[in-house]
């Protein structure tokens, strides 16, 4: 409850000296209620340019078929599936923050879960676009669903991980969407009650008539908890099933039992990197520094060290097991990854994913905004290369040396990828304009227990004292004033 005071040694989750409940409302509603800033317009224009590029490239692919891409007989999956897995992975951080950290009662999730969940939804939209596009005949996508048809009915093959993937991704998208929207209801109601005229009417419809009564809140909390409970195994299942697309095949380099945990760790790793990339900019531009604090950034960096290290161990294990298996083809697949024609992709992956995140062991680096932002970009790049390495280097040299080939992307491959970033950022920037980017109700919940001012009050009233050598962010000098 709000009367519970948290230890002063814990980093405060809301900084600032004079934050009140109405101040939180003002600060978080401000970006939605004022006219968009110049920075927003610049970002939005670039994003829409990317979106247009995406439209052109996807339309070109639909018109001409996937021959427009650089695929060949040997490399039948390349950037399409790389981008798909990359985007789905990015989405996973949102669910980790909203579901798993809720179950573990990590209160620092409260101020980042909203935007991270939005990121999940937009990332899954981008991922799904690659799945639809790589089918070639996109207008027949419903053939992947178990629908009655005129061929028998000939049903989809439920023994195939590709069919499991259809169910996993669509369930993941649907459940994330409803989890996110249910969480938005109280905050939409806040905007509704501050707005006038047409805005009030629109937000009134969107708020579903939320009124914040006792029973509503009680059921809301139950719903949140159960949704978190079902989303936790769901998010783990999604990337597990994505990894089954590879692991259940007989391709050397893909056919490994380590894939499910390795993919899930990689997904969370890349997702947190993307959350940092976005939020470090957003907190500055939108003025959320008091709510998304250095403590939040540092916590996320710690998760990046953990998941980055798990991914590093997985790379090593794969290599070791390939050698230990004694299977010549398996061994070649891995030697070829590190020293073959795609050595540069492999070593980019190792540098970005395994080596650079280890810099976060230094407190100076993980509490530096610039360093964090740059390293988050490194992780994004590294995780893209990881999927590229797994997919293309495993395929490009198959059992028959006469069919060995390289993959060269065409302008369409490159445009769809860059364009998907445009799609993502267009959606994200629109989200920042129309919906509160921080869950106001959840942040207000922390004000009395975990904020800097509440901790200062404890010190001031002599209920607690900072230990010698304390080097956290509470400024003791102010406590005496």
């Amino acid at each position: 409850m709000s009367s519970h005071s948290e230890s002063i040694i814990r980093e405060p989750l809301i900084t600032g000296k004079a934050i009140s409940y109405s101040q939180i409302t003002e600060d978080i509603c401000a970006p939605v209620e004022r006219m968009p800033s110049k920075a927003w317009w610049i970002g939005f224009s670039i994003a829409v340019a990317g979106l247009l590029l995406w439209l052109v490239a996807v339309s070109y692919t639909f018109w001409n078929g996937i021959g427009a891409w650089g695929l060949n007989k040997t490399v039948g999956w390349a950037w399409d599936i790389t981008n798909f897995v990359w985007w789905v992975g990015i989405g996973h951080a949102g669910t980790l923050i909203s579901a798993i950290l809720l179950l573990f009662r990590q209160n620092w999730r409260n101020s980042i879960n909203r935007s991270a969940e939005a990121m999940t939804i937009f990332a899954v939209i981008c991922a799904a676009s690659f799945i639809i596009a790589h089918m070639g005949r996109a207008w027949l996508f419903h053939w992947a669903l178990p629908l009655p048809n005129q061929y028998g009915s000939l049903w989809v093959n439920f023994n195939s991980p590709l069919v499991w993937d259809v169910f996993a991704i669509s369930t993941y998208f649907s459940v994330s969407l409803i989890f996110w929207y249910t969480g938005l209801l109280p905050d939409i109601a806040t905007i509704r009650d501050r707005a006038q005229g047409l805005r009030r009417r629109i937000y009134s419809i969107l708020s579903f008539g939320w009124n914040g009564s006792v029973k509503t809140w009680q059921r809301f909390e139950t719903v949140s908890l159960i949704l978190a409970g079902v989303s936790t195994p769901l998010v783990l299942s999604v990337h597990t099933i994505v990894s089954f697309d590879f692991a259940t095949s007989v391709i050397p380099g893909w056919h490994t039992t380590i894939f499910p945990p390795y993919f899930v760790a990689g997904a969370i790793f890349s997702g947190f990197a993307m959350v940092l990339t976005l939020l470090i900019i957003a907190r500055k531009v939108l003025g959320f520094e008091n709510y998304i604090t250095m403590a939040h950034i540092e916590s996320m960096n710690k998760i990046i060290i953990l998941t980055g290290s798990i991914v590093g161990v997985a790379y090593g294990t794969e290599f070791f097991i390939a050698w230990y298996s004694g299977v010549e083809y398996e061994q070649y697949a891995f030697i070829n990854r590190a020293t073959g024609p795609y050595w540069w992709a492999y070593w980019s992956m190792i540098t970005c994913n395994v080596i650079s995140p280890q810099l976060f062991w230094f407190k100076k680096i993980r509490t530096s905004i610039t360093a964090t932002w740059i390293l988050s970009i490194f992780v994004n790049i590294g995780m893209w290369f990881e999927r590229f390495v797994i997919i293309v280097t495993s395929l490009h040299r198959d059992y028959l040396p006469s069919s060995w080939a390289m993959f060269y992307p065409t302008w369409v491959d490159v445009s769809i990828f860059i364009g998907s970033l445009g799609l993502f950022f267009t959606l994200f920037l629109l989200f920042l304009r129309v919906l509160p980017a921080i869950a106001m109700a959840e942040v207000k919940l922390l004000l009395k227990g975990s904020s800097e001012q509440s901790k200062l009050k404890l010190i001031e009233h002599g209920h607690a004292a900072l230990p010698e050598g304390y080097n956290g962010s509470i400024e003791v000098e102010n406590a005496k004033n």
Partner: protein
Amino acid sequence: MSKVKYILGHFDDPDVMMSGIDQLQKSNIAIEDVFTPFPIHGIENKLGIKRSRLPIAAFCFGLLGTITAFTMVYYMLVIDWPMNIGGKPAFAFPDFIPVMFELTVLFAAYGMVFTFFYVNHLFPGRAPRVMDLRATNDRFVIAIDASLNDINSVDAVLKEAGAIEIKHNERKYISYDEE
């Protein structure tokens, strides 16, 4: 004064409001409802509100999802069109599990959330039953039915309990149409 329908006690602090509830109950004043900007833990016990049964609904919907998925896959792969895939059995139960799991989660989540919307009358376009606009912002509002209680004594108790503002509303809910 007889036109007053509801008395609203505004508090700016959840803990003060909680002790306000205690004092109102000590004076035998029935509380209609409490509107807050965020969930207040422990308030259900004070107001005698029963535990939500939504988890049971979620479980039932989840079970329905499991059964639906199993029935669907079994019908398609075993009854309607069994396929000979390398001589393996058509009823390959382990392969059914991923789809059964996904549909369990999907049914549980959507079933529970729509039940929540249904029992709380939440739907797009629903006119909000809000008694005070600041209850979604920074005020913790206790609503008391004026027809059941003596207005002056309610006011006195609320003031005593630390309410920063006391409102006498002549209609139950705010009208969102007046502008």
